[in-house]
């Protein structure tokens, strides 16, 4: 090999190396890939808010009903704890003849539950034929319809339409419809007092699958978690006058969660778990409506259960869609409140609920785990608030439930499955004790609406049918 040839070899090798490096640098291995960007679904611009004349429709059918004594005036009952304090004794077995259904009623598709006030039941129903929200009043004992008040509004099926429970006092009825229309009526005769279109007034987003927040009346004042330009508002039920509006600087949105009254550290407050975070708002005093504390540590895209506030300042938060749960600890020092998250976990690691708010009873928490709750999925479980990841007991793999309601009355726990199977259990802090179980009616689906109970009459529903069961012994 000549010296000239030897000189050429490194030049050729260097040239090949340079070309290779250039080719390697210029080649794009992702050139055949499709970039996934937003907008590929051609999402629409949204539908403009409809002009709604709240309270425009009224029909009277009867004034004949049997007055009764007891009430279940709003979501989770009078004390907002889903525990009936009634002394009325209830059955613990249905017997061979099954549940005693005293009346049943076909409703528009949805999950709205009833409120009961001294012999009258109130239900916000969506009339699919008339395309109208209707607050319907029934006689509790025989189901005879008394009157209805409502308004035309177009609502498409989206896992049901109606899903809220009215708030009822001696004087007023307050409702929130699927598209955030608030209606306040006189309880006695259904006369219209005032209405509020939250979307138009505060520019909030209607929650997925429509409004799930149940309204609150506290001392004649309507308390609403609105989201949008304001966080929470208080409206005088008598006049419709706005008493205060809580600022919402972070633009948190309305959730399916409901506003819970809570007294801690010498202050009464309203606790609301919004989309974006959770807030405690002063309920009274010169600073009523101002934020006492807030945190964005709890921020999930769908929140249906309401905050469960315990006497020692612990607030249990839970939600579905993989969110899991969080335990907050509220502290007060010289009138100043602070809050910290002391525990947070995924749904397979401890007590979590997708739709219903857990129960706090005798110092323990009870709830039904969601479908992504691991090996204990869909089981009713009991935990101690000091460690909500450690199960005290679970109902067992042969006793699973769905997204339906559960509550305690006459020292019995009533649990409703999606298919309208009603279970009676003995609530206990040591073990699950089944008393009886019955299918209330056939072909039931999505029986998710919370229970209402007064004078021994239990109102429950599936997505299209409501029934009243006489549980009196």
């Amino acid at each position, binding site marked *: 090999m000549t010296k000239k040839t030897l000189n050429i070899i490194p030049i050729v090798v260097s040239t090949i190396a340079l070309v290779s490096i250039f080719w390697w640098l210029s080649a794009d291995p992702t050139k055949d890939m*499709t*970039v*996934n*960007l*937003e*907008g*590929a*679904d*051609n*999402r*629409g611009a*949204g*539908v403009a808010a409809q002009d709604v004349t709240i309270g425009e429709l009224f029909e009277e059918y009867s004034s004949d009903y049997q007055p009764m004594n007891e009430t279940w005036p709003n979501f989770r009952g009078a004390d907002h704890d889903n525990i009936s304090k009634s002394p009325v004794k209830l059955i613990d077995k249905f017997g061979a003849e099954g549940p005693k259904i005293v009346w049943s009623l076909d409703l528009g598709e949805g999950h709205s539950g009833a409120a009961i006030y001294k012999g009258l039941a109130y239900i916000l129903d969506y009339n699919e034929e008339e395309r109208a929200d209707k607050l319907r009043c029934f006689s509790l004992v025989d189901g005879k319809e008394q009157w209805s008040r409502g308004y035309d509004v177009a609502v*498409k099926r*989206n*896992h049901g339409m109606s899903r809220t429970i009215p708030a009822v006092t001696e004087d007023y009825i307050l409702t929130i419809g699927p598209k955030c229309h608030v209606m306040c009526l006189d309880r006695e005769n259904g006369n219209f007092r005032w209405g509020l279109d939250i979307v138009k007034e505060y520019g909030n987003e209607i929650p*997925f*699958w429509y409004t799930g927040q149940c309204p609150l009346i506290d001392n004649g004042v309507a308390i609403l978690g609105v989201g949008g330009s304001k966080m929470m508002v208080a409206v005088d039920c008598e006049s419709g006058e706005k008493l205060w509006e809580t600022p919402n600087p972070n633009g948190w949105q309305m959730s399916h969660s409901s506003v819970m009254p809570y007294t801690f550290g010498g202050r009464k407050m309203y606790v609301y778990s919004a989309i974006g975070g959770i807030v405690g708002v002063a309920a009274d005093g010169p600073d009523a409506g101002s934020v006492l504390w807030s945190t964005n540590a709890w*921020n*999930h*895209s*769908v929140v249906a259960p309401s905050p469960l506030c315990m006497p020692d300042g612990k607030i249990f938060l839970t939600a*579905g*869609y*993989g*969110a899991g749960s969080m335990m907050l600890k509220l502290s007060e020092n010289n009138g100043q409140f602070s809050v910290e998250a002391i525990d947070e976990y995924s749904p397979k690691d401890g007590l979590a609920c*997708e739709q219903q708010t857990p129960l706090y009873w005798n110092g323990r928490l009870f709830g039904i785990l*969601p*479908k*992504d709750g691991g090996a204990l999925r869909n089981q009713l479980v009991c935990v101690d608030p000091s460690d909500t990841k450690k199960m005290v007991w679970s109902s067992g793999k042969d006793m699973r439930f769905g997204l339906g309601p559960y509550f305690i009355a006459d020292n019995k726990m009533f649990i409703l499955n999606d298919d309208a199977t009603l279970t009676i259990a003995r609530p206990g802090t040591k073990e699950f004790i089944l008393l009886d179980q019955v299918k209330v009616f056939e072909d039931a689906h999505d029986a998710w609406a919370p229970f209402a109970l007064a004078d021994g009459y239990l109102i429950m529903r599936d997505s299209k049918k409501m029934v009243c069961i006489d549980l009196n012994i």
Partner: protein
Amino acid sequence: MEKKNKAQSRRKFIRNGARLSLLLSLGAVSAAALRKVTTDGYVWQIDPFKCTQCGRCATECVMTPSAVKCIHAFDLCGYCDLCGGYLKPDANARSTAAENQLCPTAAIERKFIEEPYFEYHINEDLCIGCAKCVKGCTSFGNGSLHLQIMHHLCVNCNECSIARVCPSDAISRVQASEAYKVKGSWTNPT
């Protein structure tokens, strides 16, 4: 004369016998062929009601990508904007941007129908059978997304490597005439 008739009768007997044998043979062959067409042995099938979406269908199948694919029962779907099978939990936005999609291969196509409905299609070529979408849909939705072994892709191993490890015993051999077990009234839109 009588002798001739006897000979003819014997030939006729032999001829008829041969015809009958041929006919019987044809009948037997036809029956065997028909039986093969109607039963055609056994194939592997996933029971979507037993499936626990463990993800092993994607990793254990001898085919790459897996012969297990997600299919969609449109009649069960809620057509939700917030789809637990399409979007990651707590996604930043309900959009088609890659960071919001749960599917690792973007095999689910999302189309806006009208407020508030969206339709979801599975691109079978991209689906790897990981079941992430099935888990999301089952946990948070109506369970309309579910897995099936696609028999135009499956090589029908004597011992299905997925069935060996399936923790919920959701895979079993079934007659080929009932190869799919689907939810709702699903039909492959492609």
